[in-house]
C-alpha cells in the first residue's frame, strides 16, 4: 500500500500545482454574491436558497473535476508517456491505478471540504447564527463526495480502454442515466412488451443508482437524513466502486502502452 500512497500523494500535488483548486475562488464569489442578494429578495427562505445553491454548486463543480480530471488520470500519463519510467519501477499496475484514484479523491475531499466551509460562512452571514439542524449539510456533502468518488472510478474504467473524448462521453452518459436509475426501476404501466421491460429493469440495476446520494432537497428544508440511508448508500458506493476499480485494474494490467 506504500506505493499506492506515493502515487496518490503525487496526484494530489499535481492537482494543486495545476491549479485545480482555483475553482474555490469561483465558489467563494458565488456564495458571497448569493449571500448578499438573497438577503434582499427572498424573505423567509434565505437559508433554503443558500443551502440549495451551495450544495448544487459543490456537486456540479465536483462533477466537472471528477469527470475531466478523472479521465485524464491515466490517459494523460499514457499520451505524454510519463507512465513509462514509473511502470519500470517495482510498482504493480493496479497500485498505480488505485493511487491515481485515491489522489483525485483526496483532491475532491479537500475541495469539497473547503466549499462546505464556504457554504457555512455564507449561511452565517445571512442568519448571523448556526443551528443544530445545519449539521445535516455535512451529511449531504458527504454523500456528494461518495458520488464523486464513484464517478472518478467510472472515468478511470473508461479511460483504460478508450479515447479520452469517448471516456468523458461514457462517464457523463452513465452519470445522467444513474440519476434516473431509480425511476427506471419503478417504471410501470408503460406500453412496451415484457421482454423490453425486463431488459430495462436489468440495465437499471447495472447502472450506478445515484438517486440515494441526493439529499439536497431534504437538507435545504431543514429535514434530517435517516442514518440507515447514509449507511446503505455508503456500503453501495464502496461495493460498486470496488467492482468498477477491479474491472479497470484487470483491463489496465494487460493494456499495451503506445
Amino acid at each position, binding site marked *: 500500500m*506504500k506505493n499506492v500512497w*506515493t502515487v496518490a500523494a503525487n496526484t494530489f500535488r499535481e492537482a494543486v500545482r*495545476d491549479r485545480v483548486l482555483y475553482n474555490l475562488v469561483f465558489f467563494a464569489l458565488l456564495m458571497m454574491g448569493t449571500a448578499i442578494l438573497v438577503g434582499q429578495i427572498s424573505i423567509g427562505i434565505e437559508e433554503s436558497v443558500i443551502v440549495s445553491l451551495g450544495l448544487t454548486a459543490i456537486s456540479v463543480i465536483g462533477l466537472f473535476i471528477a469527470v475531466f480530471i478523472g479521465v485524464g488520470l491515466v490517459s494523460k500519463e499514457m499520451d505524454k508517456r510519463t507512465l513509462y*519510467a514509473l511502470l*519500470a*519501477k*517495482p510498482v504493480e499496475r493496479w497500485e498505480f491505478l488505485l493511487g491515481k484514484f485515491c489522489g483525485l479523491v483526496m483532491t475532491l475531499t479537500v475541495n469539497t471540504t473547503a466549499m462546505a466551509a464556504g457554504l457555512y460562512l455564507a449561511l452565517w452571514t445571512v442568519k448571523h447564527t448556526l443551528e443544530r439542524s445545519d449539521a445535516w449539510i455535512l451529511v449531504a456533502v458527504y454523500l456528494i463526495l461518495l458520488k464523486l468518488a464513484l464517478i472518478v472510478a467510472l472515468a478511470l474504467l473508461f479511460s483504460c480502454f478508450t479515447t479520452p473524448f469517448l471516456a468523458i462521453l461514457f462517464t457523463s452518459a452513465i452519470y445522467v442515466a444513474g440519476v434516473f436509475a431509480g425511476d427506471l426501476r419503478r417504471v410501470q404501466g408503460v406500453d412496451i412488451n415484457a421482454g423490453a421491460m425486463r431488459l430495462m429493469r436489468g440495465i437499471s440495476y447495472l447502472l450506478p443508482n445515484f438517486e440515494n446520494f441526493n439529499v439536497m432537497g431534504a437538507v435545504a428544508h431543514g429535514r434530517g437524513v435517516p442514518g440507515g440511508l447514509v449507511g446503505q448508500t455508503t456500503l453501495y458506493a464502496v461495493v460498486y466502486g470496488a467492482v468498477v476499480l477491479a474491472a479497470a485494474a484487470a483491463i489496465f494490467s*494487460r493494456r*499495451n502502452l503506445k
Partner: protein
Amino acid sequence: MSTPAIEIEHLSKEYPYGFLNLKKKKSLEDLSMRVDTGEVFGFLGPNGAGKSTTIKLLMRLIFPERGTARILGKSIDDVSMHRETGYLPEQPYFYDYLTAGELLDYFARFHGLTAADRQTRVQNMLKKVGLETAKKIQLRKYSKGMLQRVGLAQAILHDPQVVILDEPMSGLDPLGRREVRDIILELKKEGRTVLFSTHILSDAEMLCDRVGVIVGGKLRGVGTPGEMVGIKTQGMEILFEVTEGKNLPLLAKATRTGERYRVHMPEEELYGAIEQLRAAGARILAVTQIKPTLEEFFMNLVEEDRAQANAVEVSGK
C-alpha cells in the same frame, strides 16, 4: 555457467492496424538472445527495426504474442525484477510540474529507500548528470538534452545491476553524448550490465563488448563489433604533407585536401610507399588500417532487407 543478465526466448510482437484493427503487422519475429553479466551490449538497427519494441517488452510496457524473457534469472512478469533494473525510455518525458530533485525523490520512494538515503542519492545523481544547478527548476522549463539527463539519473538512481537505455544519446549535444558514454563506461567498470539501443554506430563501436543487429523485426547477427564486420583489413591509408612540385609517383593516386594528401594502398605496398615519402622529404601525419565499419555492415543488412521486401512485393503482385 553464470546466469545471463538478460535472456530472451522467442519473443514475437504484432501490432494491429486497419479500420477495425483486424490486420496485424509483425514488429518483432522470434527474437532470442542473451546479454551476459557485466557486458555492455549495443542493440543496433534503423528506425522501426524493433529495438524499442524489444525494450518495451522487457519492461512489460507492452505484451508479447509469444515468447518470454528473464532478467537476472527472474521472469519479466515478476515486478520485483525492477528492483535490480534501471530503464531510460526513448525521448523521455516526465511530470513537468516537478523539479528534477522532486522527480528523482518520487521515483526513489518506489525502491523503499529511507528519506536520508533518498536525499543523498538524489544530490549525488544530479551532480553526476550535471543538473545540480538546475535542480529547483520545474521540468517544464528543461531542454530535451536536460530531460535526457534526468532520464539517465532516474534509471541509475537505485544502483541497478542491469541498466537498459533506449537511445540514450538521442537529443544530446557532443558534450552530453560524451558524458553519457562516460557514465556507461563507469557502469561497466562497476560490473553492471548495460543494454542500450542506438542507431549511432560509432557509439556502439566505441562502447560495446557485443552488439546485436536487428532489421525488420529480425535479429540479423550478434557478436563483437570486430566479429560483425570481419577482422580482415581492406588496406592501408597514409596521410601526409609534401612540398609542391616534388616528383612523387604516389601523388598521382593521392587525394588532396588543402595542404594534405591521402593515399590508399594494399598492406604489402605500405613500406615501399613510406620509403618513397621519406626520400621525397614528405611529412607523414598518420598511417591507418582500413577496415569495413559497422556502418557498412549495417547498411548491407538494411539493403538486403529492402531487396527481400521488394522481391516479396513483386512476387505477390
